[in-house]
């Protein structure tokens, strides 16, 4: 699982209860668990609640994992996914059985400021991801957002490579169809221009030439 830095030695040290090893292990994986949760569940669960429960499960059950130094990332992914599903089911039962109010779509852990800062295009991506069936969404997240290759996704999900490929193909088709509806060409969002239906966004807010002290470009007509 090359996209994730698994550290077998750290896992062994944690299992041997060496001072500081547990904290190091949790520190290394917390960002990943939070990311998975945000991307898989959108705003439907509190990612910090999921992280807390998954951390407890690592703490109490790591010793039950076979060959954790090899299988830890996929075990952790399954545990996180189960926890997300459990919380979503609970929210659904609460909503349906107790006629509770529908959940807030925003990510409660991000806080109002950060939610307000989420760009329109990111919000639409989240909306589309949440429309995908679970099986398609997880291959999209792991491959397109987490950067795993298709073989690594198959290993992570314990399914055949062909299954990943077909799920990914279906997910992309559905994503693009939804995206065309929600982001029609010519609709200028985020201050960016569109080319072929895509929003051109700057990765880094500081990547704005107007921030730079340009006093005019000099002539470069000489060539090499």
């Amino acid at each position, binding site marked *: 699982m090359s996209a994730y830095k698994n550290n077998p030695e750290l896992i062994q040290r944690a299992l041997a209860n060496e001072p500081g090893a547990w904290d190091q292990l949790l*520190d290394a994986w917390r960002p990943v668990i939070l990311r998975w949760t*945000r991307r898989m569940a959108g705003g439907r669960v509190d990612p910090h609640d999921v992280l807390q429960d998954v951390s407890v499960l690592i703490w109490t059950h790591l010793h039950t994992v076979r060959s954790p130094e090899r299988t830890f990332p996929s075990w952790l992914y399954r545990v996180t996914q189960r926890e997300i599903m459990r919380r979503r089911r609970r929210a659904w039962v609460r909503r349906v059985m107790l006629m509770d109010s529908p959940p807030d779509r925003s990510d409660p852990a991000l806080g109002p400021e950060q939610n307000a800062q989420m760009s329109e295009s*990111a919000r639409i991506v989240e909306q589309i991801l949440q429309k995908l069936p679970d099986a398609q969404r997880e291959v999209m997240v792991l491959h397109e957002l987490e950067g795993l290759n298709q073989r690594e996704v198959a290993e992570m999900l314990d399914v055949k490579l062909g299954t990943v490929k077909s799920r990914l193909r279906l997910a992309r088709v559905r994503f*693009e169809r939804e995206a065309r509806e929600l982001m029609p060409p010519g609709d200028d969002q985020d201050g960016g221009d569109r080319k072929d239906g895509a929003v*051109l966004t700057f990765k880094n807010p*500081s990547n704005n030439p107007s921030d730079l002290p340009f006093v005019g470009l000099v002539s470069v007509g000489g060539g090499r």
Partner: protein
Amino acid sequence: MTNYRNELDAYAAETESTPVDMAIARARWEAGRPDQRVSAWMSPFRLAFTGGMVAAAAALLFALLPSTPDNQLDPTGPVALGEQAAPVDVSLLEGISISGEGQGLLTGTAGDRAVALDSGRMHFEVTPNAGLHLQVVTDEGTATVLGTVFDVERDALGTTVSVERGKVQVDCPGHEAVYVTAGRAETCYSAEGYLGHGRALQQAGEAPEVVLDAIAHAGEVSAEPAFRAELAVLRIESLSRLSRHDEALSGVEAFLADDALVGAAAEHRPTELRRLAARAAVQVGGCERAMPWLDALNGSDEAEGVDLVQYATCVGKSDPGAARAALEQALDTDLEPKLEARIRKLLGQ
């Protein structure tokens, strides 16, 4: 997915975990971690050893209790509080009681005690007007009792003193002592707390002066290099936004000269700081001052369009060929459409 790569990248960046997330996660973990971990290493030897220790502790307690009236203690040596994650419930003969969940060490003699609180939340009751002196000390600050009932909680974000009755003097490093009265609380931040507070203010759109003020004393608490690095970055960013370019430049130079900070910082930080330094250097000393920074950026794989354009602007007169090459390279990056059009015109495209 090429049509929507930009959107997916933006979404990925916006759902990335932040240092503030990590500070929150650590604080929650410290507050809610289970007392006992199910462990495979509990060998018969260890179980026997632990059992022996428990029996010995029980025997010691049994021997101690009858010697003091009403189950109150009068220790003259250090007493560990909350060992083995057990709840703390200690009543001292002179009129101080300590309860709660956490770990710490009680030292001192009757009437003059100190508790070094490592973690968790403890509740203190000190008989008023009895001449009792109690200090609760953590890495982030000191609470000195003036006859009162109060709580001290230590988590990843710092140490919080909440007063129920009476008055407590709280000393946070770098700040003037404050007297906290009943119903009020005061927090001495840890490095993580300062960072979380500063980033939250920044994300809420507060002025950079406010952010700088919030983290001004962060250097006075001990911090792991990763937190020192993030605090330094936050300070440099704020200085830059305030156009205090000389200070921002010095900050970047100091940061990059500190191997521990560079090693602990997120991978992209040094490049970000070089970019910021190049911008500040242009303001302070023009292209001449900025060139070392621009050269470093231009020679790396991390150069963005703006870096390349700035480089071309600076070398345009002295080395038009290099400037042209940099502008051509810049056209392959994300650029503002107007700037892109201007560069194309300049290059005769």
